[in-house]
């Protein structure tokens, strides 16, 4: 007997089932389907979502039958996977109260630390340089209207 292993096809198929199911389900539950003549806003998402759901199931079955490559999680750059969103959300949240300068520094620092083998000193230096370049390009050269210093600090 062979044991079922999580391969790329099975995982991708399940992801498609999830998405298709969500679109199809929320369209059926919350939106008017209408008729073929006068389609409601739920017609297209229900049909396409259903197709995605079905296709996802086929891909999962395909993955169970064939021996696709097994998923190898050891290569995933976990630091970046966690630090990128953290940096981006910090950036967005800091913009209004603290301003572009601090928001950019936070984002750059998070992204720099996401790289393997980065030292604290180099990350700080890199953040400062890239922040300066960004401010020069966006605020001065392109004249974007983002306040450098936020509301709380004025």
């Amino acid at each position, binding site marked *: 007997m062979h044991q079922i292993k999580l391969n790329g096809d099975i995982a991708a198929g399940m992801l498609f089932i999830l998405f298709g199911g969500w679109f199809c389900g929320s369209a059926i539950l919350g939106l008017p389907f209408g008729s073929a003549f006068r389609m409601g806003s739920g017609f297209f998402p229900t049909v396409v979502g259903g197709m995605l759901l079905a296709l996802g199931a086929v891909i999962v079955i395909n993955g169970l039958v064939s021996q696709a490559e097994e998923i190898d999680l050891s290569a995933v750059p976990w630091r970046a996977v966690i630090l990128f969103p953290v940096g981006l959300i910090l950036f967005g949240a800091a913009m209004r109260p603290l301003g572009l300068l601090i928001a950019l520094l936070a984002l750059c620092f998070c*992204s720099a630390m996401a790289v393997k083998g980065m030292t604290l000193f180099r990350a700080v230096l890199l953040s400062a340089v890239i922040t300066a370049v960004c401010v020069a390009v966006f605020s001065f050269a392109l004249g974007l209207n983002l306040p450098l210093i936020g509301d709380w600090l004025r």
Partner: protein
Amino acid sequence: MDILSNLALGFSVALAWQNLFFCFVGVLAGTLVGVLPGVGPLATIAILLPITFSMQPDAALIMLAGIYYGAQYGGSTTAILLNLPGEASSAITTLDGYQMARRGRAGPALAAAALSSFFAGTIATIIIALFAAPLAQVAMAFRPPSYFSMMVLGLIASVVLAHGSILKAIAMVLLGLLLGIIGTDIYTGSARLNMGTLELADGVDFVALAIGLFGIAEILRNLETSETREVLTTKVKGLWLSVADLKRILMPSVRGTAIGSALGILPGGGAMLASFAAYIIEKKMSKNRSEMGQGAIEGVAAPESANNAGSQTAFIPMLTLGLPSNAVMALMIGAMILQGIQPGPDIIVKQPGMFWGLIVSMWIGNLMLVLLNLPLIGLWVRFLTVPYPILVVAVMAFSAVGIYSASGTVFSMYELSFFGILGYVFMRLGCEPAPLTLGFILGPMMEEQLRRSMLMSRGDPTVFLTEPISLGFLIVAAAALLLITAPSIARKREEAFSEES
């Protein structure tokens, strides 16, 4: 002559100083990202999209287009000098180009690449000028069912030519269609599928989706391996071609241009397929085919002319039908929509200045690339020594500022993070993001045409089969699907048989 007056209009737009400037910026940025492996034209165009908001529409499109075809040039430089294709479409150039460089003929190889690309760019510009207007005229007569079927064909073609599993590519298209219709239903004006958030009522932020899927996902992918690049500094001498060399590259360039132009127009085609096809055909037809693979100048000229021609004729369906034939064109359509221009066959009538200006700018951009690249090759190669961490941080910062300046909400950062991680997961699972982008752009258009068709036919779905143009598109789409599935089934069966024996 109509064409001449149109081209004159194009020149007057393209030669306006700010358009010349942005064309220059575009090809410069394109060459740079073409040289750097790991940052492609897709990610660059996505990252620079928000900056184009404040620009004139023609300047914005001219710059974005410049990035695309500029990247083809940059990619060939590293392919020849370092055996490192900066761009997927120049992968085939490494075969003969690097061999030439190893034999001390790097100069002629680079010159051949640049000249054949310029030749192809010139011919492709003429082809666009000749055929775009009549094609748009034909498309104007399309009724909703034909439009719908044309988009089906476009999506199928993108699936057929995607790498890897066809099933996954179709699923990605469907997911793109669904993501595209999140927001407000145009017929009733009511919000739908927005998970109760106000921010999603305007739909998913296209820029965040594009940067997430192509920019951030690509970085995550590159962070998997922490390889260090070795850069050998080769002195490049003798950039001039001998008469004998010029004679040798003439016919390969002509053939490459023809193949590239044809494949570029096809939905899903574009530069990469074109360069591979041109090389294979050259290997069959060239007088010096025995040298191919060992440093034949034909092996550089043919794929380089093909990928340049293909990347330019890919604009034809985008400009005349509003149909993106690849992910870069999807981004271009996105840029147009963000500028308030509805893509479709009437662009040529409503925005003649932008239309012809863009076409002429491609030729001017190609000229700039030849003049720029050959003297500056040493500088471009030096860019390869830029350490990857700097690129990572710069891309993150530019993306975030660009998106935030356009949306002004924290929510767009959630979207960017979501699509970045999702894009990475999909890449790991062998699902290409390009079909999703096409679906996302076409989703709302397809739904609209579907609803119009059904209103027209009073709910009779056979209208797609009784309308001749529509039927034609569907037949071609079905044939394409059959063609691609048949050999892959055959191959799978072959594999099964070989395992048994």
